[in-house]
């Protein structure tokens, strides 16, 4: 198992062992004296970035591979599903409801100018299922769960509990990272579906109360919109594919980012705070950027309309 060797802390990654900060050794033997100083700095900075990225992907690879490797920590997975999924239900319900409501409200104003308020359902369902549902659920979970994971693993790192796990013969990635990643991969799509549904109901409430659109008309346009997007295998609407793919990817991003920064914590309690901040910022930005590229990809792969 060659790849695991590169995870040994002495060779760079603080994930599996020491509390000593990751060293940047093994500089290639360029003749530094002949380079201008800014180039040397640029070289070092670029290397550390690449190293970070490499470690991130190694962690991602290991944690995903361990899903299928013994021993299974089923209890930890269930506990994390509760932590990530069930306990995030409240904030996801609230964000979903109000996003759907405000979408209906805003579009009613806009559509009124064309006399097309009957199409509110189309707008709300398309926006919620394809875009806002996954992204908002992702951002909320990144804030609530990502920060929690990073803080927990970070304090375990600084109080030597990660070293203790290693010493007691447990791979911390298998015991701590894999259950969190697996739970997030499962629960984020679930949360997103709930978010979408509640958002569309929120749109329904505003459409009937403020605009005076009958519920039957609203739900017909919601379905029309979904059906018009086309189907995969004749039964699964394209919108659903897009709406499920995204949270699946976001779940991975949130959990792996949080575990990466959490396990990499150095420098005591202050380090824990920094790890938490970095997790929320990085995973939120990654969600927004990757959302664009998934959309681009799926729009070209799935045949819309």
């Amino acid at each position, binding site marked *: 198992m060659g790849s*695991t060797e590169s995870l040994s802390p*002495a060779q760079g990654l603080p994930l*599996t062992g020491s509390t000593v900060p990751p060293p940047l050794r093994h500089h290639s033997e360029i003749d530094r004296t002949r380079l201008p100083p800014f180039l040397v700095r640029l070289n070092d900075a670029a290397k550390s970035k690449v190293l970070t990225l490499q470690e991130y992907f190694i962690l991602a690879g290991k944690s995903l591979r361990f899903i299928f490797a013994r021993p299974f920590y089923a209890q930890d997975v269930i506990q994390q599903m509760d932590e990530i999924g069930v306990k995030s239900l409240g904030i996801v319900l609230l964000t979903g409801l109000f996003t759907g409501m405000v979408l209906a409200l805003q579009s009613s104003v806009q559509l009124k100018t064309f006399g097309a308020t009957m199409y509110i359902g189309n707008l709300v369902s398309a926006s919620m299922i394809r875009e806002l549902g996954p992204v908002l659920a992702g951002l909320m979970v990144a804030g609530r769960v990502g920060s929690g994971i990073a803080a927990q693993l970070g304090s*375990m790192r600084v109080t030597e509990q990660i*070293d*203790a796990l*290693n*010493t*007691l013969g447990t*791979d911390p990635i298998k015991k701590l990272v894999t259950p969190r990643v697996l739970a997030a991969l499962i629960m984020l799509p679930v949360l997103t579906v709930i978010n979408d549904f509640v958002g569309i109901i929120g749109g329904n409430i505003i459409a009937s109360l403020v605009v005076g659109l009958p519920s039957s008309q609203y739900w017909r346009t919601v379905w029309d919109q979904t059906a018009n997007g086309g189907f995969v295998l004749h039964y699964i609407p394209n919108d659903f594919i897009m709406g499920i793919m995204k949270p699946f990817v976001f779940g991975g991003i949130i959990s792996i980012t949080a575990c990466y920064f959490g396990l990499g914590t150095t420098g005591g309690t202050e380090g824990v705070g920094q790890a938490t901040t970095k997790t929320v910022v990085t995973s939120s930005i990654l969600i927004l950027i990757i959302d664009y590229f998934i959309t681009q990809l799926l729009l070209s792969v799935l045949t819309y309309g």
Partner: protein
Amino acid sequence: MADKTPPKVADPAEQDRRDGDRRAGEPSSEGRKSASVRQAIRSELEGDDPAGGETDSPRHRGPDAPPVVEMNHVSLSFDHPILEDISLKAMEGETIVLVGESGTGKSTALKLILRLLVPDSGRVLIDGDDITNLSFEEALDARQKMGMVFQGAALFDSMSVFENIAYPLREHTKMGDDEITERVREKLQFVDLEPDRVMEQMPAELSGGMRKRVGIARGMANNPQIMLYDEPTSGLDPLTTGTITRLIMKLQRELGVTSVVVSHDIRSAFRMASKVALLHDRRITFFGTPEEMTASEDKYIQDFLGGL
């Protein structure tokens, strides 16, 4: 500790009376005298523990058996060198105490033995087997021979005391629930804790000394051959320090465990050590019995022992 020389008092005997066994580093002419004083203190300290600290192991192995823990010219550096050319041996049943100023890489040496770190050069041997080149998974297995007690105990705070001690058993043995419960009780009793009182408590509810003891119980749950202690007595009051020190000696005496202790508490170090290794300036500058150490005329060693 070493650079802080206590204020000179006119009459050294007077200071002795006031400070118990605290003495400044003396010039070599008086070194001998103070050594004998320390000797006396040491035997007095062991008085409460008649069997003494360095009883030889009851285990039976050939005289030419390999050392249980051996570091062979080990060097390690991160951004800057941390350890250079470290060699030490712990024979079966011995207690090696690694002393030195803070920040000299004592804990790093323990991590090398546990293979939480890999040395840049040199070899670490456990029971004669080279663990330097093990893969990550093999290293997890190799660590089964060792029990580690961390400085802050490093108990898993999401688990109860019982779950903490049962953890290594659940992970690595096929013991049933009853057996595990029995083993946990046995270990808790060994460290002088009442199983019924503490088993269901969470680590956050325990005092520092109790956490250390639970940490020791967890470390020894698997009946390891080697125990490693990182600053077992730091941050504890003198009485608790004594309790923990006696506990480490009891472990060695009754179970014949080989121990490596990292400490800067020279007093408790001398009580339990069969050999003392002094880490100074990234190297081991002294390796020998406590008696040899007190008899040494080296200026740094005498300064270091100034605290005794």
